[in-house]
């Protein structure tokens, strides 16, 4: 069998790539996608450790994460759409209503 | 009969407020009648507190205790001779305030009445709470309706005034919260019991060096509320901007919460610190008396004049509180009631004038007496009550306060007595400029004298003024034993000074507690 550290390193790489992508990309949608990547990296870590702990609980957590991610994607995309409708842009730099 | 009468009095207004939520906001008269009914019923219930109050017992009566959140946070309320009349004052004034706002408040009537009733619960809660957490909850809860009362129905600078009021008060109360937590955790460390019960804390003998900080935290909170010079500047602003009802409740009851706090918490909990800060606080009070009087003298706005007069009067009350003898403290409590009645009445009167003229500037008036003779009579009586004329309530309180202060320190009393001259000065001058002289403003010719509703709500106040001035015994008698006990607690410091202590310990000693309390604590532990 493949040792768990392989998976874990893959998870780390994916996570960091996701976070880099978040900063590098300019539009909200792709930034949102980067978050999904990070979530998936976390999922991978969960399942790996669940496997090495011989437990199904980790999978249940991942199941929940996926569900929440779905809900989050729905709402998040709705918000992005709304922003686009009102501001005619999805460039993250243009959106700073909360500037103090 | 085992009716939880105190809880009833406390929460009836809140229940009334909830009831009002379900009434449509356009049905203004129904709203007013309902809230009035709630306030009157509350008052009637609170009367039974008075009649069933046993004046021989110094400890709180009508005690109700129930678990609430655990960890010593309990629902624990009771009334003693110090708080009894403040509750009655609140419940008496609330119907009056609602009546006075009958036509004065036209926009958002529903919300106004709801806030008023919530405020009543908050205020009564402060006076009955015996658990520090509960007290703090009420203390803060009462700020919220007050914030809206000034902020929504206030004058042109209402936002400024209401923010100033809330922030000022918050500043003090947060420090108090810290002090409460400190006491709480230290009590737990020392005894292994979670407790926020005031009476458990009364049993503590604290290290004086720590007392100082705790006292300062408590005292600041109360001093702002009183307000003690130099923390008074929120008061004129809040009063000037607040609607009549808000001003009345603010002057009549809210300020008393400060002095009440001193009597209930700051003095008995930290007697050594009190001794240390006594000179400072007494001098500040004295400055407040004279300073408030002088400032009142030159105000151009009637409301801010009355507000500064409050500073002066409350200064006298504080000075009496710090005199720490029976006469002075009974006088102080009595004077709190007097001030509540007379200043409350003065604000009502200013409100009546404002409703007719839409101005509060003294210079806009003149010769109103001619146009409104009945009003003039009421005004005169209320003013004289505030001046402290014998035969009216103010005199009893004033003479007891001054007597007590005199007993404690002659010089302070001699300087403090200037209040009776200053009060006559600013109030009579104001009365002259507003009510007497020729009518200079044509608007005044259109003023109508008091209508029945206005007479109805002023009469009880005037009756109380005479009653309290002529036959104060029923009031003073009920305070006696509680005040004596309070003074015993404050004098507890002597125990400390007779024994040498290490200064590092927070807790020096816990007074032996009764078996009943022990059992209770055991139960707590078991939980």
């Amino acid at each position, binding site marked *: 069998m493949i040792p768990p550290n392989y998976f874990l390193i893959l998870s780390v790489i994916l996570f960091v790539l996701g976070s880099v992508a978040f900063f590098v990309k300019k539009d909200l949608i792709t930034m949102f996608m980067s978050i999904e990547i990070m979530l998936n990296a976390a999922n991978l870590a969960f399942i790996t450790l669940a496997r090495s702990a011989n437990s*199904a609980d980790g999978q249940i957590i991942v199941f929940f994460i996926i569900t929440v991610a779905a809900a989050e994607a729905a709402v998040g995309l709705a918000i992005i759409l709304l922003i686009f409708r009102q501001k005619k842009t999805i460039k993250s730099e243009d959106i700073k209503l909360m500037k103090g | 009969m085992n009716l939880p009468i105190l809880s009833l009095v406390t929460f009836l207004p809140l229940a009334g407020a909830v009831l009002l939520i379900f009434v449509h906001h356009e049905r203004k008269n129904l709203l007013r009648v309902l809230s009035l009914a709630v306030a009157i019923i509350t008052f009637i219930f609170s009367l039974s507190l008075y009649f069933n109050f046993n004046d021989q017992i110094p400890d709180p009566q009508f005690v109700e205790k129930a678990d609430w959140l655990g960890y010593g946070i309990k629902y624990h309320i009771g009334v003693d001779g110090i708080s009894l009349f403040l509750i009655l004052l609140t419940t008496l004034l609330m119907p009056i305030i609602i009546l006075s706002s009958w036509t004065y408040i036209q926009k958002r009537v529903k919300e106004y009445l709801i806030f008023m009733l919530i405020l009543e619960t908050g205020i009564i809660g402060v006076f009955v709470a015996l658990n520090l957490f509960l007290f703090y909850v009420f203390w803060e809860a009462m700020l919220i309706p007050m914030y809206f009362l000034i902020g929504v129905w206030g004058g042109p600078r209402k936002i400024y005034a209401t923010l100033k009021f809330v922030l000022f008060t918050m500043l003090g109360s947060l420090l108090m919260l810290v002090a409460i937590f400190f006491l709480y955790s230290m009590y737990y460390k020392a005894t292994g019991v979670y407790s926020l019960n005031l009476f458990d804390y009364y049993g503590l003998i604290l290290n004086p060096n720590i007392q100082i900080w705790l006292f300062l935290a408590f005292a600041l909170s109360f001093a702002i509320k009183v307000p003690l010079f130099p923390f008074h500047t929120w008061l004129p602003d809040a009063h000037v901007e607040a609607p009549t009802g808000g001003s009345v409740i603010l002057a009549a009851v809210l300020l008393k919460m400060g002095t009440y706090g001193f009597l209930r918490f700051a003095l008995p909990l930290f007697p050594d610190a009190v001794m240390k800060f006594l000179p400072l606080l007494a001098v500040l009070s004295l400055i407040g008396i004279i300073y408030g009087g002088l400032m009142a003298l030159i105000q151009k706005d009637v409301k801010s004049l009355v507000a500064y007069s409050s500073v002066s009067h409350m200064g006298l009350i504080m000075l009496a509180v710090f005199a720490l003898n029976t006469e002075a403290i009974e006088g102080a409590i009595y004077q709190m009631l007097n001030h509540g009645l007379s200043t409350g009445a003065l604000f009502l009167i200013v409100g009546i004038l404002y409703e007719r003229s839409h101005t509060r500037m003294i210079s806009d008036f003149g010769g109103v007496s001619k146009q409104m003779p009945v009003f003039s009579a009421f005004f005169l009586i209320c003013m004289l009550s505030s001046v402290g004329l014998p035969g009216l309530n103010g005199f009893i309180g004033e003479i007891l306060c001054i007597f007590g202060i005199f007993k404690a320190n002659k010089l302070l009393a001699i300087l403090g007595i200037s209040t009776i001259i200053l009060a006559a000065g600013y109030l009579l001058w104001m009365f002259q400029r507003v009510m007497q002289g020729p009518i200079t403003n044509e608007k005044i010719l259109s003023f109508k004298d008091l209508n029945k509703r206005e007479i109805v709500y002023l009469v009880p106040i005037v009756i109380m003024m005479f009653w309290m001035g002529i036959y104060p015994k029923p009031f003073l008698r009920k305070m006696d034993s509680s005040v004596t006990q309070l003074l015993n607690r404050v004098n507890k410091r002597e125990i400390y000074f007779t024994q040498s202590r290490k200064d590092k310990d927070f807790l020096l000693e816990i007074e032996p507690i009764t078996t009943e309390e022990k059992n209770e604590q055991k139960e707590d532990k078991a939980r």
Partner: protein
Amino acid sequence: MGYFLFFLLAALTVGAVLAMIISKNQAYNALFLILAFACLGGIFALLEAPFIAVVQIIIYAGAIMVLFIFVIMMINVRYGIPAEKKKWTIYLSIVLAVVLIIELILSIKGAFTLPVSTAIIKAGPTDLGRLLFTKYLYPFEITSILIIAALVGAIVLIKKKEKK
């Protein structure tokens, strides 16, 4: 066999993510991501989590990414997005990412010595279903409420206001 599959899938995943970072077209981005997620599903299968693997492919690579694509279509940015003014955030973030990767690897160092588990775990759909309706009943139900709330929320947000 296992190793080969793992490296293949891992390389595809990382490659897809890198391609996503480099590509400027949103539609491509989404497609790359679908690829990455699908590969991840394969990796999950390698980890003996068949149910999650399937869910990953159906829900993530399928449903969620379809949502993205819909939105991308609705927004339809024809012209490329102009470059950002604030560059230093990006550079700083890359530096930080390097630090992060070092830290993360250091932090999973403890897991390197974990023994390879050979025990057969019960993680088929039936087992997960049983767990979900027993031990995780409350979270499960709460999640359903969450989804409903998200659904309603999304609709409310998107709904165009009626003109009065």
